[in-house]
């Protein structure tokens, strides 16, 4: 399975947005946060869930696959990099291709930006900014063994089903131990295509 990576545990998230602030401080895109913090049931519960780039492995990075300018590179260690500024044409193909809704476009600069697993930090042995500061450990950086040593019995998933399409990712999610479902259903169920009910 995965090596040193981010594990997301929504059960621990308190919605504080420290990850969002920390991501802004990251030197590779200082001033912009690449983290989405979603509230899953607003008005009903305070549950929240951070989304970072999942660094898809199989199929390898849909965002990179669809990029007409070959601006999104995947490093040997599986990190899907943010678009190379000298190549990106700001077409937003990657935004549409990503099943997790991660890449962002800076419309003014006509540039794509996304989480690159803090390559500027991880390459030097530091953890990504978001996972470093997350006060609750909802974002955890390390190996599966390190995570399990800290949280006995924790179960993780790194395969997501979008309809019939399976995506396995470099970043993993903690799933409730008593409700392990394999693969984890990803995204919203498709109920309608071009006005036709496909349920």
């Amino acid at each position: 399975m995965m090596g040193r990576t981010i594990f997301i545990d929504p059960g621990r998230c308190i919605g504080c947005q420290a990850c969002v602030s920390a991501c802004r401080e990251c030197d590779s895109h200082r001033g912009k946060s690449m983290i989405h913090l979603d509230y899953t049931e607003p008005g009903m519960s305070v549950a929240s869930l951070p989304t970072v780039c999942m660094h898809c492995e199989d199929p390898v990075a849909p965002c990179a696959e669809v990029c007409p300018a070959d601006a999104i590179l995947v490093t040997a260690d599986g990190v899907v990099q943010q678009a190379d500024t000298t190549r990106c044409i700001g077409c937003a193909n990657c935004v549409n291709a990503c099943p997790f809704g991660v890449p962002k476009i800076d419309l003014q600069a006509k540039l794509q930006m996304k989480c690159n697993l803090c390559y500027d930090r991880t390459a030097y042995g530091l953890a990504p900014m978001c996972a470093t500061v997350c006060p609750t450990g909802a974002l955890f950086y390390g190996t599966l063994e390190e995570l399990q040593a800290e949280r006995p019995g924790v179960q993780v998933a790194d395969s997501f089903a979008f309809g019939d399409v399976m995506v396995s990712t470099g970043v993993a999610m903690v799933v409730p131990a008593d409700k392990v479902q394999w693969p984890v259903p990803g995204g919203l169920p498709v109920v309608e295509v071009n006005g036709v009910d496909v349920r």
Partner: protein
Amino acid sequence: MTATDPVKAVSLPVPVSIDPSIAPPGTRNFRDAGGIPADQWHADQNGETLVPTHCCFCGVQCGMYLRVDKHGKVFGVEPRNHDINRMRLCPKGINAYQQVNHPDRLTAPLMRRSRDEEFKEASWEEALDFTVSEIRRIQQAYGNDAFGLLGGASLFSEKTYLVGKFARVALKTKHVDYNGRLCMVSAAGANKLAFGIDRAGNPFSDILLTDCLLIAGSNVGECFPVMTQYLWGARDRGASLIVIDPRETAIARTADIHVALKPGTDAAFFNAVLHVIVAEGLTDETYLAAHTTGWEEVKQTVAAYPPARSAEICGIPAEQIVQVARVFAAADKAMAWHARGIEHHSQGVENCLTVINLCVATGNIGKPGAGYGTITGQGNGQGGREHGQKSDLLPGGRSISNPEHRAQICRIWGIEESELPGAGTSMMEMVWQMQRREIRGLIGICNNPFVSLPNYAVVKDGYDTAEFHAQFDFFLSETAANAHVVFPVTTWAEDEGVMANAEARVVKHNKAQEPPAGVRTDTWVICELARRLGAGHHFDFPGSREVFEELRVASAGTVNDYYGITYERLEETGGIAWPCPSTEHPGTPRLFEDGRTCHPDGKIHMQVVEWHPPMDAYTEEYPLSLTTGRTVAHFLSGNQTRRLGALVEQTPRPWVEVHPSHGFRNGDPVRVVTRRGSEVFPALVTEAIRPDTVFIPYHWPVPTAANALTIDALDPRSKIPEYKVCAARVEAADRIDEVPAPPTAPGQEAYPEAQVSRTDPLPPTSPQGRGTAERS
């Protein structure tokens, strides 16, 4: 100064230098992509240093490094692996560094002779002379006690020591108090009564060892976010979590038991829990017999609180009370932590005592994983009152009314006992005294009562009535904007000093940059005022280090013993919990391990508590409870955090949280009316609050101030205001009150990034997921 301990000269800690090759590869272009604050993100990182220090905000006191560029300017933050926080930081901590070189910083004294004039920049000489002449004029005409001093619990302990000494020795007034009076004095009072010592019994790390964790009145996820890692760590090891809170907070969401009781009913609840524990024979009678006094009386009192009765008072199912009692009492090791939710009440001390009774009756005191704690809101909420800034305390937590304690301090200070004033009044009482013209002049240091005190109309009237008002701050707070003189002082990153966190662990903050030109340290200003008042020989302190040396000596032999703590030891160890009586002593992270408390008989003095209703009565006109609290992005009166773009963006304005049963839709203008006034907020409709309760976060000034609505009733013992409950009603309105921009000095542009977000009218940005998306 008669401190005898020799002062050893030492150099500042050597900052850790960063290997310049760790510069981010080829990514600088992104810095231009809409940064907040753009100007600071162009620092020259070659030759960057990291200065180890701590966060300036809450009582967790997370360790952090400030990033300093080669020109000596703070420009960023880097997480630090300190054992309090192990790299973690909350959004306030991450953005705190942006204050240091913020465009709103005050860099010259501001002065005006009357409130009808505009502020003008003045020289330090002028501002100090004017202040001293006003102090003299007022004190000569109306007596020494006509001049008051209000300090703050965000000051380093050295400065809080100076505030107390300055009031008594230089101003010779009894009127000194501090804003920790609004924070955890109820817990302090309860701990003193029960244990004879005013601090949490256990370190945070004990939370990881407990089997049952009870959190009462504390929104840990938002107010002390980094403490959450201990909670989740305990849960990973199988501990059960009980949360007592009228709102479903982030920690309540995943608790085993969430008791959403009606605000102001805590004592009735805890008495009933103890009632069940007694009835089911779950008390630890051996422990009670060996270590306590007063148990029989407590037992008799709680007999009158069967679950059915309390359930009715608290508005919860009686079964929950039984459940909490069984889970808490059955745990091998149980702990209770509480915060303002049970402390901000007219029976705040009593509420805390009921929690203590629960821990004591089950024998959960003084063991790893078993004990009690109070979570301090302000960075130095704990240390801020230990050294004499509180109206009734002298350094070392000595009582100002105790002749022996007075004599000890007079010896250290080199004054006659007859010169030392007696106990003064509390912060809110001082405002009432200003209204009555008993106090005619005031200096405020590091506090913002215009936002943070209850019943704004009274506060404004009190300050307006004062003939002279000076304020120390680094931003022009709403309160400073009312002053005659404003002294521009340093931020936490421009001076060194110690703070004591919620565990009573003393940590050292280091200086990361030189203050901007024109800015002085609070220490310098206080000593300079003392010199001009003719008390200079008592205030010969070049800096914090010299003050700390006197503080150590002044605390020696007391319950709050700091004698063994030195700057060098703090730097080596990363923090030492007091009491620490000698330089060989390791400090005391956990209290009462030998079974003895700090009372002379070594016993825990259990106290009888009867519940009584909140001060503001519910009527048909005011049927709801209004309660207040914090949001994760802002700190206290918001003077600091309402100026930082990222935090303003995260939470630009307050809202009123209401249950769907009131029929409002998300974002609707809702007028909240209490007996003190009314204001209009956007509705945040949520099922995560009781139908009979509404909530407003309190970080903003009028006309969006929760504290324009709250009641200025005080706990008779701790004098803490009853912020957490008052009677209110809600009604539909046609427009929402706008949040005013934070005041700035003349000539300063309002900070544009903050402005953009602040004028965003609607609706609340789903803080912590509470907002209702229109559900289909």
